[in-house]
């Protein structure tokens, strides 16, 4: 009985590992990945799913096995074995989760850094430019410290194509996109594929949150402050833009689309939409200022 149970444990362990590894890669829970950031996050999520599946099977397995195997027989009034603890076992199940969360924390840190979350210069560009016009450099430093970056900046890796900058204004219950390069104003976001996009975001009334599920990124949009979101679309197509912070009764209706164009299509879109803007520009600015 001894040897078979050892082999059984081994087989169970191998099966558990294989199932976890397989499910971690094939859960199919995430929507399409349409940005560089999305594939980073999905890699992290797959690892977390693998570990979670393994732990889930072990613990639920132990519970179900106990319920089947260790049942009290009718009329049996005796107690179970008086085991009050087991120090090596307890050290083991303290150490393993510690190692797991350590690995997850480091991996998450790496992913977050790659996504540009720790970009030291992140969102300063805009304020710096404004500040440089009006202030001495000592004041500038003070200003920098008090206004740290919010959101995702440039990724420290790879080539640094100058990003496409878009100013985003969130108001109840719409998003307004302003392209400073061309003066285009739109209620939908249009971007070219494979070029970094940098959104400078603020809100006109209450808190909103800018969420692109297919891009796996989200950042609150805060009245009176500027926040920032940088990402690189990798897949053409049309995807939802969703407000993810409760902003009033029609919060659920506050959505629009982001269209990722090929470079040529994007140029075409810009051309088609720059012309029509001149007269509507003022109106939109008014809404934004309210």
């Amino acid at each position, binding site marked *: 009985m001894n040897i078979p149970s050892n082999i059984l444990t081994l087989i169970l362990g191998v099966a558990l590992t294989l199932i976890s590894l397989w499910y971690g890669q094939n859960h199919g829970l995430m929507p399409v990945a349409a940005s560089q950031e999305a594939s980073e996050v999905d890699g992290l999520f797959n690892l977390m799913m693998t570990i979670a599946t393994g732990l889930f099977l072990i613990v639920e397995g132990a519970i179900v096995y106990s319920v089947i195997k260790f049942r009290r027989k009718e009329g049996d009034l005796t*107690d179970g*074995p008086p085991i009050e603890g087991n120090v090596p076992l307890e050290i083991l199940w303290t150490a393993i989760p510690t190692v797991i969360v350590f690995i997850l924390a480091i991996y998450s840190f790496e992913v*977050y850094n790659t996504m540009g*979350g720790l970009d030291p210069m992140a969102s300063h560009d805009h304020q710096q430019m404004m500040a440089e016009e009006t202030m001495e450099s000592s004041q500038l430093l003070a200003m920098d410290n008090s206004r740290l970056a919010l959101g995702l900046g440039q990724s420290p890796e790879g080539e640094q194509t100058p990003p496409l900058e878009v100013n985003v204004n969130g108001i109840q219950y719409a998003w307004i996109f302003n392209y400073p390069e061309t003066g285009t104003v739109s209620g939908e976001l249009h971007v070219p594929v494979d070029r970094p996009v940098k959104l400078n975001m603020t809100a006109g*009334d209450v808190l909103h949150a800018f969420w692109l599920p297919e891009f796996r990124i989200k950042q609150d949009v805060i009245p009176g402050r500027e926040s920032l979101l940088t990402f690189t679309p990798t897949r053409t197509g049309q995807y939802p833009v969703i407000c993810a912070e409760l902003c009033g009764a029609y919060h659920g209706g506050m959505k629009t689309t982001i269209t990722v164009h090929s470079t040529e299509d994007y140029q075409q879109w810009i051309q088609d939409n720059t012309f029509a803007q001149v007269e509507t520009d003022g109106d939109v600015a008014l809404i934004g200022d309210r």
Partner: protein
Amino acid sequence: MEQVHPQRKWQDYFGFSTDHKVIGVQYLVTAFFFYLVGGAMAEVMRTELATPDPDLVQPEFYNQLMTMHGSIMLFLWIIPAGAAFANYLIPLMIGTDDMAFPRLNAIAFWIIPPGGIFFLCSFFVGAPQAGWTSYPPLSLVSGVWGEEIWILSVLLLGLSSMLGAFNFVTTILKMRMPDMDIHSMPLFCWSMLATSALVILGTPVLAAALILLSFDLIAGTAFFNPAGGGDPIVYQHMFWFYSHPAVYIMVLPFFGVISEVLPVHARKPIFGYRAIAYSGLAISFLGLIVWAHHMFSSGTPGWLRMFFMATTMIIAVPTGIKVFSWCATIWGGKISLNSSMLFALGFLSSFLIGGLSGVMVASVPFDLHVHDTYFVVAHFHYVLFGGSVFALFAGVYHWFPKMSGKMVNETLGRIHFILTFVGFNLTFLPMHPLGLQGMNRRIALYDPKFQAMNELVTIGSYILAVSTFPFLINIFWSLWKGKKAPRNPWRALTLEWQTSSPPIIENFEEEPVLWAGPYDYGIDTESVDGDEEVDDMLAEVAGSS
């Protein structure tokens, strides 16, 4: 009094009493009433969400229901229900006759019914609709009086919770029977120490935030209102400084309940007493330094997001210790699958899922995707329903014979469990993929591509609603016609089982005897002083009488 050992009359439960047992039952029944109210609101919301369009109720009303559902379930159900067990059990478990401050205890309870009714009255002036988090500026622009009532009610309930916490700590530390040192008291008392510390440290900060918010709302100040130069992010920090620990305030007491229920019905000592006791304190301490993980996508700079990610993930370690210890407790035991044990095992299997998704949402890059989606809704319902509420029912079935002197009907109890377990998982499991796929939370209208899964969730929630009926029938029927409960129906070793069911007014007929450790099952226990009556009771526990 004419009787030698006077019992409470049923009328006593409807008036002002300083008896901790009466107050405990009053807490529990009041909390359960609000559970039904909050649950009814959830059912209206789920019915609305059965279709993508806002066709059943106005979106404004949906947001009111959503706000009230969250606030009621947290402040009027889970937190008072934890206090209910604490009030009822602590003096009995440590072998004393009442709480340290009985009158304060009664006052703490009597704040709750008027507070709760005041809160419900906000529907007459337009209930708050900024969510239970009440983030400004939205909370400042969506109806003044509903919001103000919300603030005042939460302040009142917070006060009640603090009065209770001071009482629990004092009682546990100062009123244990002479022979009981701190390492031989039941684990439920440890969990209430950890809980009370959080209540005492966290609640004042929430109160400060709400008072300032109230000034912004009524007097037009601008502490948090960006229109006047205020900072809405500061509110979020102050709010979560209490409200994240509040999650532990809501779950730690029920960890304690589980540590009591499992050993008795598995006939084994608790596995790793000290590890469970200290991990509760560790959770309590770490719980104070994780609050900004609710704000990863908010106004939190990158390095701070990393700090709070690390602290949050570390909480998985003490929590894991508890879960593994509970599994090891039932492993190799002699399990009776009665209603109490079923709910305890339901707790273990559901809370695990909430814990695993908890580590996931602690990871900043992943949280940036799922924050404020149904994934998070699924996560916290697995913790607060799968965790707290399952354990709460385990506790109710376990101590009902002690509280009422009547046994419950096990068949109805099992039906209750099966309906709850199926309904719960059907309601909340599909919310994980919904959130990952792109459904945000707190919305009355949603993308039609999510309809099929939402229908499933709505059906699950109806099963959950139905599951309360066998429970209610069981309770009323058992009170009326149930079999009389003996002193110690589960053959348990904690001290509340040494007295009659229900206990007499001053708890114990004579000085209680520390007959054994609280979980010394299977260990040959003989009372030290050779008291015959105690020996008889011990023999009964050991099953040899």
